[in-house]
């Protein structure tokens, strides 16, 4: 169990907005939709939810290791385990990159979890760049005491 944590990389991915960008522009999921020119596939009623941090990965085990519930997941993977992973972590928003669209079954499951799901035509790399530019930062990695950073 993680009890005592030290946070890695806050200088680049926790806070530390670039000069002239001190105000966090990215406040809600609705802001993300605008920045990514995204199409919302379900959960329109939750677009006013605040956005905390972001994680981009196709490896669900990495997501399970490092992500908390205030994190938006950006992924190119469209299989049911993305939604299941979101369920385990109580995530609130999924972004599918490169125009990928999950199946109807996945969307139904996402709806039952009150998830916002959107798709953007941007690549995962560009989507992350746009969100970063708008002030969103990566999830700070929590290293349990005794584990060394690479």
């Amino acid at each position, binding site marked *: 169990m993680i009890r005592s944590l030290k946070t890695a990389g806050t200088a680049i991915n926790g806070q530390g907005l670039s000069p002239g960008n001190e105000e966090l522009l990215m406040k809600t999921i609705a802001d993300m939709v605008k920045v990514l020119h995204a199409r919302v596939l379900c959960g329109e009623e939750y677009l006013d939810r605040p956005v905390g941090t972001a994680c981009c990965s196709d*490896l669900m085990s990495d997501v399970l290791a490092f992500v908390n519930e205030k994190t938006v997941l950006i992924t190119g993977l469209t299989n049911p*385990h993305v939604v*299941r*992973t979101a369920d385990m*972590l109580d995530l609130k928003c999924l972004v599918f990159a490169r125009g990928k669209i999950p199946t109807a079954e996945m969307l139904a499951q996402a709806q039952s979890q009150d998830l916002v799901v959107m798709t953007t035509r941007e690549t995962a790399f560009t989507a992350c760049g746009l969100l970063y530019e708008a002030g969103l930062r990566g999830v700070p990695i929590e290293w349990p005491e005794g584990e060394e950073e690479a």
Partner: protein
Amino acid sequence: MIIHREYPVQAGDYITAGEASADIKRNLKQLGVSGKVLKCVSVASYEVELNLVIHSLGGVLMLDVDSDRVVLESKDIGPGIPDIDLAMREGYSTANEEARNQGFGAGMGLPNMKRNADTFSIASSPAGTCITMGFNLKEQ
């Protein structure tokens, strides 16, 4: 004992993989478990369930809850883990292509379980692997 549940898990069944963990999470929520403990049990449960699907010949996932502790136990029928120390290393994985296509096989499964549990034990032989994880409901 407040509740005991057993979930058979079939090897290679990626369609239903995760359903046991979703039910475990539902049960714990109904019992009033929330916050960090719920997240830790959910993540560990999902990882161990996926391990059964990806690596075992089939097995069972068990949940036991009493007033101060949640215990997850996974037992399978083989083929066993030849080198447990290696398997515990982050990034080491023997997962096949199918598992990787599903978003797994990052080599984070066992380390993730250990990280999230308060107690973790693993024993393995060609006859099977047994993983037991304990989660404290009350702060020590």
